[in-house]
């Protein structure tokens, strides 16, 4: 076979040839637009809980905000903190921005976005897991960060510069197509509709869809306390006694601190710059978790011990102080509904008992 040049083609003919591709892009684009216009329906069936909590908080000016990781989302009920006051002013309107899996970096970013009108008080429910540099939560860059946040992370935390830029870029890329972005919501909505139309067709998926819808509704109209039924009603003591299987917990493995912790300074500066008081609550965990991770627990507490010297009040919400037992937990780290009620009431009283200018650790 002798080499021969490719058949000559004119540009116009080439473009005409690509008409099927044009049809494809056009049709997909229209479908995508339809998915974008109806996004609230799909978001309701598969909420992006980071974005939903930030949006929920932003909806109106708040008197106080509770922030932290999943121990905060499951452990603080703003409605149970009625009577909270700061500098003699009652704080009636609060919101819990608990980010499941979130790190201190994500938490500090979330505060910035969640409070366009600065609240009077920010209560940070701190957990040892928030500051473990061995872990980073991709959902933060995907869902919460904007370009300025990414730039700040790159400046502040050189160790995760590439990781953050990559996750952020992936998150932006996913948003290019509404169908891709809302694919889980679309699937859940379809399962819900199919099950309603033909009971028994997909019961498990429909159950998941209904659970997610309820969660989305609770986040939209409530104050950020929207525990899953599993967390709210479960009891760690009973599950332990029944030798129930627990999901592997590796959030404190390979524990090291320093990088995430830099974002505590960012949180403090944000508060100071807006005249917002900042109080830190050391979140209570089970004795089992403390026994399994004595090193991380001690390292984390040592970090908190430094804060009062900088004028940041630290409330030690230890089990003994709150009279928490394993019956108040859903698993080793998350409180159930009863535990959340105890912690919320205790925090309210502890904050109220603080000198108005702050400064003393309990």
């Amino acid at each position, binding site marked *: 076979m002798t080499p021969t040049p490719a058949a000559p083609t004119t540009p116009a003919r080439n473009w005409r040839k690509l008409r099927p591709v044009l049809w494809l892009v056009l049709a997909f684009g229209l479908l995508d637009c339809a998915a974008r216009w109806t996004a609230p329906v799909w978001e309701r069936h598969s909420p992006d809980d980071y974005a939903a909590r930030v949006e929920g908080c932003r909806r109106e000016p708040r008197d106080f905000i509770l922030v932290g990781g999943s121990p905060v989302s499951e452990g603080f009920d703003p409605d149970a903190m009625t009577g909270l006051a700061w500098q003699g002013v009652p704080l009636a309107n609060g919101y819990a921005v608990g980010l499941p899996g979130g790190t201190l970096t994500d938490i500090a970013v979330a505060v910035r976005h969640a409070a366009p009108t600065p609240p009077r008080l920010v209560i940070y429910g701190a957990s040892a897991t928030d500051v473990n540099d061995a872990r980073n939560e991709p959902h933060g860059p995907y869902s919460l960060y904007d370009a300025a946040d990414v730039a700040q992370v790159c400046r502040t935390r050189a160790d995760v510069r590439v990781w953050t830029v990559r996750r952020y870029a992936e998150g932006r890329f996913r948003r290019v197509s509404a169908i891709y972005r809302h694919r889980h919501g679309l*699937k859940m909505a379809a399962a819900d509709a199919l099950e309603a139309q*033909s009971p028994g067709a997909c019961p498990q998926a429909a159950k998941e869809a209904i659970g997610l819808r309820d969660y989305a509704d609770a986040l939209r109209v409530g104050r950020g306390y929207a525990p899953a039924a599993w967390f709210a009603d479960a009891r760690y003591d009973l599950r332990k006694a029944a030798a129930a299987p627990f999901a592997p917990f590796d959030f404190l493995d390979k524990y090291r601190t320093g990088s995430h912790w830099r974002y505590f300074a960012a949180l403090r500066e944000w508060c100071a710059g807006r005249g917002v008081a900042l109080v830190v609550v050391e979140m209570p965990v089970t004795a089992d978790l403390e026994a399994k991770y004595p090193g991380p627990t001690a390292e984390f507490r040592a970090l908190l011990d430094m804060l009062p010297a900088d004028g940041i009040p630290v409330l030690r919400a230890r089990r003994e102080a709150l009279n928490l037992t394993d019956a108040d937990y859903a698993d080793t780290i998350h409180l159930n509904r009863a535990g959340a009620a105890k912690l919320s009431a205790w925090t309210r009283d502890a904050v109220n008992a603080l000198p108005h200018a702050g400064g003393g650790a309990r």
Partner: protein
Amino acid sequence: MIFASKSFLVFLAVVLVLYHGLGRRDHRYRVLLLASWLFYAVVPPHYWPVIFALTLIDYVAGLRIDRAQDERGRRRWLGASIAANLGLLIGFKYTPFAYENAVTLAGLLGVPLSPATLSIVLPLGISYHTFQGISYTVDVYRRQIPAVTSFTDYALFVSFFPQLAAGPIVRAVDFLPQMAAPPTVTRAQIADGIVLFAGGLVKKLLIADPLDQLVVGPVFADPFAFTDAAHRWAVVGWAVQIYCDFSGYTDMARGVSKWFGFELPENFRLPYLATSIADFWRRWHLSLSAWLRDYVYFPMGGSRGGELRTAFNLLTLFVLCGLWHGAAWNWLAYGLFNGVLMVLHRGYDRAVTGRPAWDALRGTVGWALVAWAATALQFLVGLIMIRTSDWSGGVRLTQSLLGQSFEPTAVALTTPVPPPVAVLIACGLAGHAVELVRRAGVPVPAAWPEPVRVVAAAAAFATVIVFAPGVSKTFLYVQF
């Protein structure tokens, strides 16, 4: 890298842009060859040298056969090519199986042999690659095609990435003429490629994988835990799964090839409409059937040597066909089963054909239905053989298929079968249903207008994005 993955789509986009961006034939083919080798070398990279060595051997053998002065020399080089291809195929694919059985046999004879199992990972697509290599050198030997002088051209023919992993098995006589000049991609090819690729994705990700997850996998893993009704659903589901999985791959391979301007052969012609086992094999995995016919069956004498000889040839052909799929007893049994059925069908067909009463009966719709049902039963039993993990489970599934009732020993599935299974099966057989409607005289267009087909493909892509499981299972035929 599998077709139904994001990494493949990125890879494909880059290769298409590079390929069509280059003007010169040799540049284009070099890019396509490098892309094909990259596609092959991604997982696992250490087998690329095997494919390269085979390519080189067959290329040289082709040239030597073409240039040999005497028949003896031509035969010697053909033999070298076949030995190299079959040697590697046997070495990689059948050595562990042979050793395992040698250990068992030695144990029975009281001779201790180390039971250490040989773990040899099969190079991706080696069964397809070796068959294409053999077909090339045989075709050159038969003077059906001239030997390819350009190594790039030959290497691209055997390594063209859309069909590298799971076929269809492309014959040199069909593919090489297309390579004379880089084929110009037509608008129809672009549209057909889009439709085929979208259809293949739907078959694989929305029908085959969910069927496996919902019913086929659980039931075949433990048949005794399920009812006889669940067995029947699982067996039919398995038939639809394997068809959608393999034909989905072929559709995608053909679609992608069209975007480069190449045409690959069809591999399926609505196989589940077959009304005899011979008809089934004329509709299922056509490229393999044709290869075995032309390079094994005919050289053995085909049907020219009397009834006994033909029966032997058919049995040999189908045993080889079974073993080509996999080195295991169930594949051997599958081949033998089909061989016996073919021999029996041939005997029956020869006995009744030409008798007016029989011919009249066989021309009726009722007889067609009976023949279809009997054929379906035959290939379903065959499919049980290749999926079952143990013989007792296979027997139980076959008994259920034949109408026996069983109570499960443990209730793994509270309802007989999840309702979407029936919908998935119906969707998987939709093409067959359309053909039946057409045969009934309803005017169904052979091809819808291009915009309609492409818009339907866009909807299919959107549906795949939404409903496909996060991680696709490996294509079944890639494992062969």
